């Protein structure tokens, strides 16, 4: 092991193993996760080649092979519990870029949520056993997040009792669905339902794409891969054009809405229910943001302990770059963010399962808040993580730019999270809509509950408009609870400003929509402040649940750093709202620098606690043993350009040029 890392590990103030147990939920979970990971690590069938040296077609082929191996192995190892499947996939597939992935995450989930019992009987087992491979085709070339704008049609023909699927324009071609290009033979297609001459909006249709046995597309189906992308090289994101393609009536998912054989349309009880799948996926993405950021921090912080550069004092050996204040200031707030998002992801997952049970019992009251919260937090965490991974990459200097660091891959595979499953700005505006509704509700005298209950305390809602006096003036910058209050005040203030600006615009403009558009920058700001408050609140509440003193101490430092760093970055908001004074902001900045030195000795232990295997980091810079340079050199030698001593371009192009004169 690299001596720097050994020294770092020996001097940590806590045992990272205990923190790993907390992150996994319990020591038993940690143990089981490692058992599963060891199954993969020890099995020669899971030999791991370096994707960086392969072409896109080769990468797709490897990914399909991995998917196939995985399906067989999970059968053999008898892994069926959802959490265990996740642990398995996380190590094996690394970035979840899995051509058959959507079969499980979307096709089966949608079938379960929206299919009737008969439909589940017909397709569920076959898709679970991969006799059919399904995907989920919603997005079109010209239409994304705005679902009502989708153009694909499904017109009911009562004579044959079939739906006729059509892509009427170029913009209506289905575009982007994963696994659609080459892998899947079924898709759930989202289309505008037309029956008896009337359009009833979007519904889901089980659509066979390719012939079983030959894998050839059926007549009426044009399907293919959409070409190279920023990342997701292994995934065959596809296009699908439907030309008068007929499917039986029974292929429409009819748990809620129905079309009778004669073409009569039966409305669903609540249209909110279809949000279920989206809420699930978005809550999952919050956890993914945390995981990707944890990986980036692990790589950048380990490398920063191994890399030596420059001098702090003349004559002394070059220091570890992690000893530079600027490097700590780049990385430690991100490390704190990774922990914050971990706990937020945990909270959302629990909340989703709790509310889902309530929905099962017919109680939909908490769904709007859950929907608003997951939309906003998905956007907030993915935007932050996106920038943070890039910051980690740049903190590794030039080597971060090489694929050997693993960071470019991490970035390009994470960044679509900002646009898929709901574009982030649109997500923030959905949260804002909920915030505005809650604000109006309070304004009209009704109390609101949940994460927005702070709106009940807005000074303007009280009889005396004594803005400043009512608000608590002194923030204690060493108390997570007090900082949570400060974030709460900021959120309340920005929600109120957005609401008032919206009201003003509504008075001046003819249409509500135009007013909404002209306030949208303020609205997004309000949503961000709300989400930021939620994250700070959940992090500080998590501290109370931790028994082990040494762990609590280090997490408390991270929680303070996360909260104070946010204040420093948005100092204007806190000053303008008189939530903090100038001298407090100076203290905040000072305290941040103190916290950097408090966290410094534990930095390596804090990333070790994430417990990523080297295979799963895919990074020469982030290796557990820290032997970076030797392995970097070995890695480079494998570059395809190094296959021959003299590259063919020399004979073809350079030599003729040299001899030209």
């Amino acid at each position, binding site marked *: 092991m690299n001596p720097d890392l050994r020294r770092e590990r020996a001097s940590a103030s806590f045992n990272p193993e205990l923190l790993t147990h907390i992150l996994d939920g319990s020591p038993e979970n940690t143990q089981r996760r490692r058992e599963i990971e060891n199954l993969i690590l020890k099995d020669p069938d899971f030999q791991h080649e370096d994707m960086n040296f392969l072409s896109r077609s080769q990468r797709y082929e490897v990914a399909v092979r991995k998917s196939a191996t995985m399906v067989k192995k999970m059968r053999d190892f008898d892994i069926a519990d959802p959490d265990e499947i996740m642990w398995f996939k996380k190590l094996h597939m690394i970035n979840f870029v899995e051509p058959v992935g959507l079969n499980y995450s979307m096709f089966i989930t949608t079938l379960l949520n929206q299919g009737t019992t008969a439909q589940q009987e017909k397709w569920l087992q076959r898709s679970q056993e991969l006799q059919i491979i399904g995907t989920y085709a919603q997005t079109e070339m010209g239409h994304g997040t705005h679902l009502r704008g989708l153009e694909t049609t499904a017109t009911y023909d009562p004579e044959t009792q079939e739906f006729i699927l059509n892509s009427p324009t170029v913009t209506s071609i289905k575009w982007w669905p994963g696994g659609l290009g080459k892998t899947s033979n079924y898709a759930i297609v989202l289309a505008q339902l037309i029956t008896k001459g009337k359009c009833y909006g979007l519904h889901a249709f089980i659509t066979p794409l390719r012939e079983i046995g030959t894998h050839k597309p059926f007549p009426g189906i044009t399907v293919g891969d959409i070409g190279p992308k920023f990342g997701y090289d292994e995934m065959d994101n596809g296009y699908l054009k439907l030309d008068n393609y007929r499917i039986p009536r029974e292929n429409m998912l009819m748990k809620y809405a129905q079309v009778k054989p004669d073409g009569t349309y039966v409305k669903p009880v609540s249209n909110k229910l279809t949000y279920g799948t989206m809420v699930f996926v978005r809550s999952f993405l919050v956890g993914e943001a945390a995981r990707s950021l944890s990986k980036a921090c692990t790589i950048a912080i380990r490398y920063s302990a191994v890399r030596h550069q420059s001098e702090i004092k003349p004559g002394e050996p070059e220091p570890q770059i992690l000893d530079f204040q600027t490097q700590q200031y780049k990385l430690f707030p991100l490390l704190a963010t990774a922990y914050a998002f971990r706990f937020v992801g945990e909270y959302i997952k629990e909340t989703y399962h709790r509310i889902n049970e309530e929905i099962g019992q017919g109680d939909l009251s908490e769904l709007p808040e859950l929907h608003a919260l997951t939309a906003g937090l998905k956007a907030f965490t993915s935007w932050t993580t996106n920038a943070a991974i890039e910051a980690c990459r740049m903190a590794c200097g030039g080597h971060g730019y*090489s694929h050997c660091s693993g960071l470019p891959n991490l970035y390009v595979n994470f960044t679509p999270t900002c646009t898929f499953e709901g574009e982030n700005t649109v997500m923030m505006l959905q949260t804002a809509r909920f915030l505005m509704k809650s604000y109006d509700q309070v304004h009209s005298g009704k109390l609101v509950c949940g994460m927005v209950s702070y709106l009940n305390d807005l000074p303007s809602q009280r009889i005396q408009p004594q803005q400043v006096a009512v608000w608590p003036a002194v923030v204690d910058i060493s108390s997570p609870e007090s900082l949570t209050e400060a974030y709460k005040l900021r959120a309340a203030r920005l929600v109120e400003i957005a609401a008032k600006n919206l009201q003003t615009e509504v008075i001046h403009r003819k249409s509500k929509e135009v007013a909404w558009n002209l306030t949208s920058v303020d609205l997004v700001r309000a949503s961000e402040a709300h989400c930021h408050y939620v994250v700070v609140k959940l992090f500080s509440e998590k501290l109370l649940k931790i028994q082990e003193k040494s762990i609590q101490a280090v997490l408390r430092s991270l929680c303070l750093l996360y909260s104070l760093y946010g204040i420093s970055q948005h100092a204007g908001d806190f000053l303008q709202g008189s939530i903090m004074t100038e001298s407090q902001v100076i203290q905040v900045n000072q305290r941040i620098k103190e916290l950097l030195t408090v966290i410094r000795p534990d930095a390596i232990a804090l990333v070790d606690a994430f417990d990523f295997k080297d295979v799963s980091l895919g990074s020469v810079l982030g290796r557990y043993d820290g032997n970076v340079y030797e392995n970097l050199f070995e890695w480079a030698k494998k*570059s395809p350009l190094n296959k021959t001593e003299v590259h063919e371009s020399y004979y073809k192009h350079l030599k003729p040029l040299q001899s030209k*004169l």
Partner: protein
Amino acid sequence: MQRQASMGSPLHRVSLGDPWSRHMHPDIASERCTPSFNVERLTNILDGGIEKTALRRHVENIISGDPEFSLKNIYFLSQNEHFEAAIRKKVHLQKLAWKLGWPEDGEEFKYAYRAVSGELALNIHTIFKKSIRSLGSEEQIAKWTPLCERFQITATYAQTELGHGTYLQGLETEATYDAATQEFVLHSPTITATKWWPGDLGRAATHALVQAQLICSGVRQGMHAFIVPIRSLQDHSPLPGVTVGDIGPKMDFEQTDNGFLQLDHVRVPRENMLSRFAQVLPDGTYIKLGTAQSNYLSMVVARVELIGGEINFLLKKACVIATRYSVIRRQSRLRPSDPEAKILDYQTQQQKLFVPLAWAYAFHFLANELLDFLNSSHDDILNRDFSLLPELHALSAGMKAMGSDFCAQGTEICRRACGGHGYSKLSGLPSLVTKVTGSCTYEGENTVLYLQVARFLVKSYQQVQGAPGSTLHSALARSVAYLAEPGLARCPAQKAADFLQPELYTKAWAHVATRLIKSSMHRLQTLMQSGADWQEAWNQTTVVHVQAAKAHCFYVTVRTFTGALENLEQEPEIWRALKCLCDLHALHGILTHSGDFLHDGFLSGAQIEEVRTAYLDLLLLIRKDAILLTDAFDFTDHCLNSALGCYDGNVYERLFHWAQKSPTNTQGNPAYEKYLRPLLQSWSSKL
């Protein structure tokens, strides 16, 4: 008829000539039908004159008319194919240039580089040549320049090592003088001393300019540059003692063979040390002829050229693509009765795209000014007058750091503003992002550069402190002259419109920069008074120093932009359009750093709200000119190489067509045969 059409619109000139470019999409045509200024005139201004526009277009026509320069399949190539294609294009271009008699270092090469979208290999070859000119003696220049120009050698510049980057004194490669043979012995003593990253080194170069620690008569004399032959001129195989190869796949720059180089006691003659600023006499006597900074000159030149010639181009292209796509893409409705709205009509989209557009213009004018400064001081420096070098060094470092920071952010904002399609390589945006983001760490890591600026600011401020009210200010560098000017304690603005006065916001930025520089100085002094030595105190205050340096750089961009506007007063329409961008840049900066402006009460909370009002109103003003402001960059569709960003706006047809050409669609599906079929059948066999 045809002629008229081609005169009325640049469509004919810039288009790819594919089936879709015959029809202009009505949604983009409507953006151009009542221009508020003359786009062609703005293009001329950006190019630096009508003649330059003409010459550029002449070169572009040659490039886009020659199938050898086609970029059609570029997104489908493997690293190896990409590299070979870039070598082929470079060689073809060189032959063409000889045939057409293009002058060495002429504008034609610059325009050709732009027209082929930088898809050329052997770019460091030119840096080698320039370094010889900066650091070599007259004899060395006379010997090596023609060899380079005739491509009898291909050369690179090898500085960075596996374990050492921006901190030059830490480099380990050694050049030990052997007086007995009058040779230098170049050696990589450790694995971390391996040269790592130089472009063209991996496969192409025959010679390298190697930066190494000079050791004369047992004394270390610091970094010097040595010309080292690394490959045989007969068969291109590595010379004895040389281990060389490619460093493997990167985020981008596949056209370049970034390489590694290990030297095992490789001997070069004494004449191969570049000796404009230092010499080793035959007996091993070391003579210094310049200051330590003179070695930095070639880096200064590289950074200045990087900002205008590379980084900002990438941002400009991203702005063109994202803005054009945003008037074609429609989504949701603004009013229930309307058709779906162009996404550029959404305030959030305007905020995303117009700020980077303002940056693109800001850095355009900044790069021009820096280039002028460089050209006017370059000869003095070569003649060993170093008085302007500190400022030039600080400015080029700061502007490289800020330029790459902002251009990288802006390009990525543009990419994400295109939603899912921005993720497709066919949009052209991912490769712009991966190229521009590399510039944040190459040619000097940005944080290190900001700290170099901070040191310059500390010295300048000490100059001001040392001579209050005296005439010594004439010695103060121009870019920091504001430090000595009396400022206001409070901003006098009363309403939103007041914040549209360039003088007012320039002063506001000068105020904040001055305050932050003062406060970081104060912090440094306090720590030293409490017993810390200078180095420790410096490390403990680097975060605030970086903050001060960033504010200073921001001030410089605002001042330069307002200065450029003053020169445009004869062009009222263009002035009006660009002033909105200048205002937007300055005010966006104030809003994102509002804490710094509120901090000492320079702005009040109420004033910040007025800034916000002014800022949001600007978005609407820029909206109507957005397409024109991006058209004015005058990129051909060939060089944009984007399915989303073509001049004619026919996005979706082109995207569908391009995707179908992907090798994943044209080369069958071996994965199905090998893995999917057996998998699909594995269950049926069990049933």
